Structure formats: C-alpha cells, structure tokens
C-alpha cells in the first residue's frame, strides 16, 4: 500500500516563523528503502536493545540523520503496548500501524522527539522572539559558548560530626568523563572540585514532627544559594560560564533534611537546580546505630547516587531534556554514556542555529557602530576577522541547508570566534564625543581672527576684479 515503488525519497519543507525579521525554513528529506538481509537478521533479535546494538554496527548514520526501521504491526520485538522504540544511537523501531496514514503520524511524532522542533529552534533564537511568546523552558538552557567550566563542591557545615570523604576523581573519570567526551565536539570542558567547610545554607529548615525530619520548603530554595555562592570562587583565568554542582551534607542537628515540593511531598532526588547556574543535592547521613558512636562519623559518599542526579541536572541545564512523551513510546536510557547520539544531534542543531543568529547580530551591530561613529579606525586584523566571520557563517548556512550537521556546527563555531574577536577588540573604543555647541566654542576663537584678514582680502580682490572689467572700456 505504498504510493510508489521502493526506494523513493520525499522532501517536506516547513516554515518556522520566529520573529519579525527572522524565520527558519526546515527541510525534512525522507528516503524510503527496503531492509538489507543483515538488517533483517538483526531485527530478528529477542529484545529491542539487542536489535538496536546490532543495527548500530551495521549502519553508519551521519550526524543529523535518523534511521527508522518499520516492523510489522504484530511483531513481538517490541513489548506489548509500545509502538515506537527509540534507541541510544540514531535509530528507532516503529510498528507499521493500521495504514500508511497511521505510520506517517507515528513518524511525525518520532521526528518531534528525536530531531529538532519548531519550539526548540525558537528557543535557540530566544532573543529574537518577542517577549511573552516563549515558555519558561527557553530561558533555562545555557547559551552556546565555546567552553564551560564545571565545578563539583562538597559542603560540610559540621566537620565535628561528619568526616566526609568523596572519591570525586574516580567518579568524574567513570561517570562524568564519558558524557563530556561525547560533548567535546560541542565545547571545551574543564572540571574541578573542592571541599568547603563550615558553609551553611541561607535558610533554617523546619522540623516536621510527623516524619521526624527537617524540611526545606520549595519557596525558600531560592535563598539557599546566595550565601554559598560567595564562597564558591571561580578560575581567574578563564572566561567561560561556570556550572556549579554542590553536594550538601546537613549538620547532625539538622539531619535528616528533605526538600519539599509545592504539594508538600518530599522530593525523591532531594535535589534542585537553577537555570544557567548549576544544581544542589542534599545527602543525608544515616544516624549512627549506637548513640555512643564516636564523633566525627566517617562518611563515604555513594558517588553513583550523587552522579545520577548531577548528570541529570547537567542534561537539563544543557537543554537535553525529555519533553512529554506519548505513552506508546519507549525511549532507551543512554546509560553510562550519558547522552544518546540523537540527543547530541538535537543539541548541535540548536547550537548551530543560535551561533549563526549571534554572528549576524554581532556583525550587524558592528556595522551600525561604524556607521554612527565615522572616525573609528579599523585595524587590519579586525578587518580580517570580520571577513573570516562572514565567510564562515555563509559556509555554515550552506552546510546547514545540505544537512551536514557536524561541518555546519564547526563552521558556526569558527564564525562566532571570529565575530566576537572583531566586536570586542579593545581598539574599537570610541571616546571623543564633541557636542555641537562645544565645537563652536573651540573652533571659533581659533579660526575667526585668522579668517578676518583673509575675508577682507577676498572682498578687496573681488572689488578690483569688477573694477578692471569696467576699466578696459575707458583705457582704450
């Protein structure tokens, strides 16, 4: 019941209006073909995870593309009630559905999940969208930057009672480094860690008699961060945005400490995060078995539990969040890698579009600045950076139109670097502003005395010339 003979391709274009002078055209190119023998063998596996792993070895999907395998409606590969399975790499398994229309609808939904959507593009271009049209999500994500600094801090306000030990280096190598390696194409990352003693939260938690624990309500959370932030510090040399992840071990007198959400229930993760800043997790230490245990108690932090939360917060801060999924979708968790390939592609799409928009804004404002102030001198290196930025951004747009995601992103990164260097060059500072009345006050005393004899002589010259014209009539 296919419209044409396999293989065929289908192109669909969609306009995404973003702002008054910006709109984005997105093009979806769909290629339909039949499966090869090896792929069919891989699809005969027992569980979707194995099928996904086997298929990943067979295909070589380029970044930005997705491969969808349509399996019969009655196939037992996917569990009951699940119609779509999204894998860790760039492939998905979809049940055929009742007819072509149902399949197309599922494919549409799948593209919304796995690839960019109108809202994700609009979020990337958030400063061009008129205010009020964006949801809260748009303001949460970190801006595209050339690098990020990640700092893990352990806060121990009560070292007399708790002797806290965390093996952060091992945890970073095992759990954080894989996701950073995957993101290394996006930006440079540097990770550091510190332990702060006697650092207290800004709010006093309430004691709840029913659960005999201390509670921090949701509306007091915003005030927690500030007193701590002054102590956190950051690297003096780098200018990259900093992401702080704090692990707080409450004092013995305030243990156990739970965070309450708006409905009054304790939060299972016991953690909260702040957009563009980082996250805080509260780690409760169990009370010692015997009350006569000697203080300080030795605490070995369970880094897996901590990293599960921190990495989830890291993904949220970057905008790799899961939107609401329809119930028939099953999305594979990326596991220790931290990031699925298609999630990385989504991030790259958003960052590429954002970079291109930033470059065009920067270069436009630079041109406007030079129009307004005519006596700024442009040095040769600034000029060459501008040319390079323009060439790179045109290259990025061309690559993006072709769908070559990695090279488009690379070009957009180069364009951003060049344009920022040109715009923020220290030599472009224009200081001298001469208001018109000051111009009169300075130049008139200088030129008026000099001009008086010149003007008088000019008048004399004109008078003589006119007289000589009348003279020849008489001289003859």
């Amino acid at each position, binding site marked *: 019941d296919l419209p044409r003979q396999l293989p065929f391709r289908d192109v669909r274009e969609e306009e995404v209006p973003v702002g008054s002078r910006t709109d984005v055209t997105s093009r979806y190119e769909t290629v339909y073909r039949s499966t090869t023998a090896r792929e069919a063998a891989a699809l005969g596996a027992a569980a979707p995870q194995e099928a996904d792993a086997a298929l990943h070895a067979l295909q070589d999907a380029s970044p930005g593309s997705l491969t969808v395998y349509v399996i019969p409606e009655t196939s037992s590969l996917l569990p009951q009630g699940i119609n779509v399975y999204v894998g860790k790499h760039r492939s998905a398994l979809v049940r055929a559905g009742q007819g072509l229309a149902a399949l197309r609808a599922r494919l549409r939904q799948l593209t919304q999940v796995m690839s960019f959507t109108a809202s994700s593009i609009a979020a990337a271009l*958030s*400063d061009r969208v008129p*205010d009020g049209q964006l949801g*809260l999500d748009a303001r949460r994500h970190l*801006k595209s930057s050339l690098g990020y600094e990640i700092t893990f801090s352990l806060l121990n306000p009560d070292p007399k009672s708790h002797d806290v030990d965390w093996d952060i280096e*091992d945890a970073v190598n*095992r*759990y954080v*480094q894989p996701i950073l*390696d995957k993101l290394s194409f996006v930006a440079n990352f540097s990770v550091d860690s510190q332990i702060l003693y006697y650092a207290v939260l*800004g709010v006093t938690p309430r004691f709840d008699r029913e659960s005999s624990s201390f509670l921090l309500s949701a509306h007091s959370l*915003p*005030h927690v*961060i*500030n*007193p701590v*932030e*002054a102590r*956190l510090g*950051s*690297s*003096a*040399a780098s*200018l990259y945005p900093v992401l702080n992840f704090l692990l707080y071990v409450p004092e013995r007198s305030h243990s156990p400490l739970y965070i309450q*959400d708006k409905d009054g229930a304790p*939060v*299972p*993760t016991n*953690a*909260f*995060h*702040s*957009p563009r800043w980082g996250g805080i997790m509260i780690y409760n230490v169990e009370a010692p078995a015997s009350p006569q245990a000697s203080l300080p108690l030795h605490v070995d932090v369970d880094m*897996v539990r901590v*990293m*599960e*939360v921190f*990495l*989830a*917060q890291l*993904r949220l801060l970057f905008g790799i969040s899961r939107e609401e999924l329809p119930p028939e979708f099953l999305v594979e*968790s990326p596991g*220790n890698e*931290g990031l699925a390939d298609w999630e990385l592609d989504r991030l790259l799409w958003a960052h590429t579009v954002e970079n291109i928009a930033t470059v065009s*804004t*920067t270069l436009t*404002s630079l041109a406007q*600045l030079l129009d307004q102030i005519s006596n700024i001198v442009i040095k040769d290196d600034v000029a060459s950076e501008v040319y390079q930025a323009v060439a790179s951004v045109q290259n990025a747009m061309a690559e993006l139109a072709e769908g070559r995601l990695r090279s488009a992103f690379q070009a957009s990164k180069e364009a951003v670097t060049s344009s920022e260097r040109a*715009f*923020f*060059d*220290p030599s*472009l*500072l224009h*200081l001298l*502003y001469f*208001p018109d009345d000051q111009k009169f006050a300075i130049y008139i005393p200088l030129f008026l005395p000099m001009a008086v004899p*010149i003007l008088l*002589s000019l008048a004399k*010259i004109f008078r003589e010339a006119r007289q000589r014209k009348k003279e020849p009539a008489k001289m003859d």
Partner: protein
Amino acid sequence: AAAALLLGCCGAALASGVQDQAEQFFRSGHTNNWAVLVCTSRFWFNYRHVANTLSVYRSVKRLGIPDSHIVLMLADDMACNPRNPKPATVFSHKNMELNVYGDDVEVDYRSYEVTVENFLRVLTGRIPPSTPRSKRLLSDDRSNILIYMTGHGGNGFLKFQDSEEITNVELADAFEQMWQKRRYNELLFIIDTCQGASMYERFYSPNIMALASSQVGEDSLSHQPDLGIGVHLMDRYTFYVLEFLEEIHPASQTNMNDLFQVCPKSLCVSTPGHRTDLFQRDPQNVLITDFFGSVRKVEITTETISLDRDLAGFESKLPKDELATEPLKYADQLPVAQIIHQKPKQKDWHPPGGFILGLWALIIMVFFKTYGIKHMKHIF
C-alpha cells in the same frame, strides 16, 4: 447557598492571587544579577562619594549578589587615607555608627584605574585580553544590571578624577552597544550628583530604568558632617536610599514605586527624578530585589539517569595528544626575540585632505594677490 458560592469564589481568587505572585517571580526573565558601582571623585573632602558607593555595595552584597558579580570602582582610598582619624573605616552615619567599609570589601578598580575609558571598557566589554575575571562584566542576555554612579556632575556630564568627563551621550551610546550585544536583560541606572537627571535624558535603548538625585539646574546636597572625621559623610539622596535598603531583605516584595518615593523634596532639598519610559514592565511589578539582590529561580530536579555501578572506568576514547615537549624555562615565556627585532610598521602616507588643501590654496592666492603676481617668477 449564595453565601457559600461567594466564599467559594473568594477562595479561588485568593488562591490564584498567591499563584500569581509566585509566578511573578518568573516574569522578570533574568537569571543572574550584576552590579557596577562607580565613585568618580578623589581627594579627602570627597569622602562622601566613596561612602555613598560603599553603602550601595554593602546593601547589594547583603541582599545576595556575590563579589564575583560586582564591579566596584573607587577613585580614591579614604579608608587608608593619612587624614582619616579612624583608619580602615568609612562611616556613613555620624558618630561613627555604621562602618560601610567592612572587612570583606573587594575593590576591582582603584585609584587611577577609574577612568572614563576603563568604565566604558567595562560596560562594552572591549577589554584587553590580559584583564582578570574580577575586572570584567561578564553579563549575558539574562542579566539584570545595577549601575550606580556618584561624584561631581553638571548638565550633561560627570567628572572623573578631576581631569576628564563622561557625557550623557557617551553613556547612552555605551548602553546602546550593550543592548546590541545583548549584554543585559534589564538595567537600573542610579546617579547621585548635581543635576543628575541630565545624565539619563539621552538614553534610547530599551529596558532601562533610571533614577537621579536631582533635576537639571538643582544641586544634590550632602547630608551631615561628622565633627570627628571633619568631612561630610554621605549625600542626602544616597543616605535615604541606604535607610530604605536596610529594611529590605532577600524575600521582600517591595517594588520600585517605593524606591521612587525615597527622599522627597522636604528631606533632600533637591527633587529626585526617575525615568521609566524605556522600561517594558510596570514599575509596580518590579521588585527591588530584581536589581539589588540576587534571587535565583530554582526548579526541583525530578528526574535522574541510571548509571551502571559496576562498569569499569574505561579509557577515554579520544586520542590524548601528548606531544613530547621540552620543559619550559622561565626566560622562554615571552617571545622576546620577536618583540625586540620587530621592524617599525610603515605608516602609510596619505595625501592631505580637502580642508587642508583648500585652506592652503586660499592663503597662497591671497598672498599673491596682495603682493602681486610678479613675485611668482622669483619662485619658479
């Protein structure tokens, strides 16, 4: 039944009111706060300008903005001035009630570093690459910035260090460049000088709210002298602003309209002014802590990812580029050979411009007309 219905309606309205106030939190759209506090006067008798700036610094720190997000520029050192009878203190109230200098003040630009050029460099971001992070304004498009300036000023200008001035047009252009590069979400500009309102007349970039201590033609007066220290300690406007800010705590809901009422003419002798036409939100909805404090928006983390505990840490898949490098010596850190043997860059010769040519032609023509053409043959 009617009464019950009415109560039900009231209850619903109240609940939505509380919800609205909670949502108002998010309406400002900013995620971080910065402050640029500038004192532009030097000399001991301008003690009050340093005290002004330090009291705003103290309030801003108390309400939560960390030092890493404050750029403090003080043109002179009053605390360690040899004429200060109480060294390491700067008082704002007479009888030495309140020491605004504290023991954790971090001055980023001090003494002669406070110039118009450095101030404009901080605002526009065109800073030489060797500047440390603490001296930069690293704001982004979601930053609310508070800019406070004090010193001696006049109609359309503000004096820096008794030797140069910044005009209101330059300031407006600097803000416009900040807007073009989206270096702020909203900006609050407060100025406490004579004829302060003239400084905000020329702003034309969106999302700026401005307050000044006096109108054009009026002088801002100082508050009270301290007989022990021998100078005036604060200016009136900032004194009453400080008293107002001492009542604010990080969770307070006081809005900008209250700040506009601070220091009426009866107390201040000058008429404070404000400008809100460029600001998109209604000042009624703008909290004081939107600019003076740093209240972060938080979200509860509801999801986690699942990690496999037993997976052994694998070697990073990326090739580690270990180049065999020789250990570097101290003398090698600067490319001295390149610097010393650099040839001076050829300055291109440009022919004289039209104005100069015209002037010289005029002078030569007048000369020869006056003294006669016959002298020409002696020259050629």
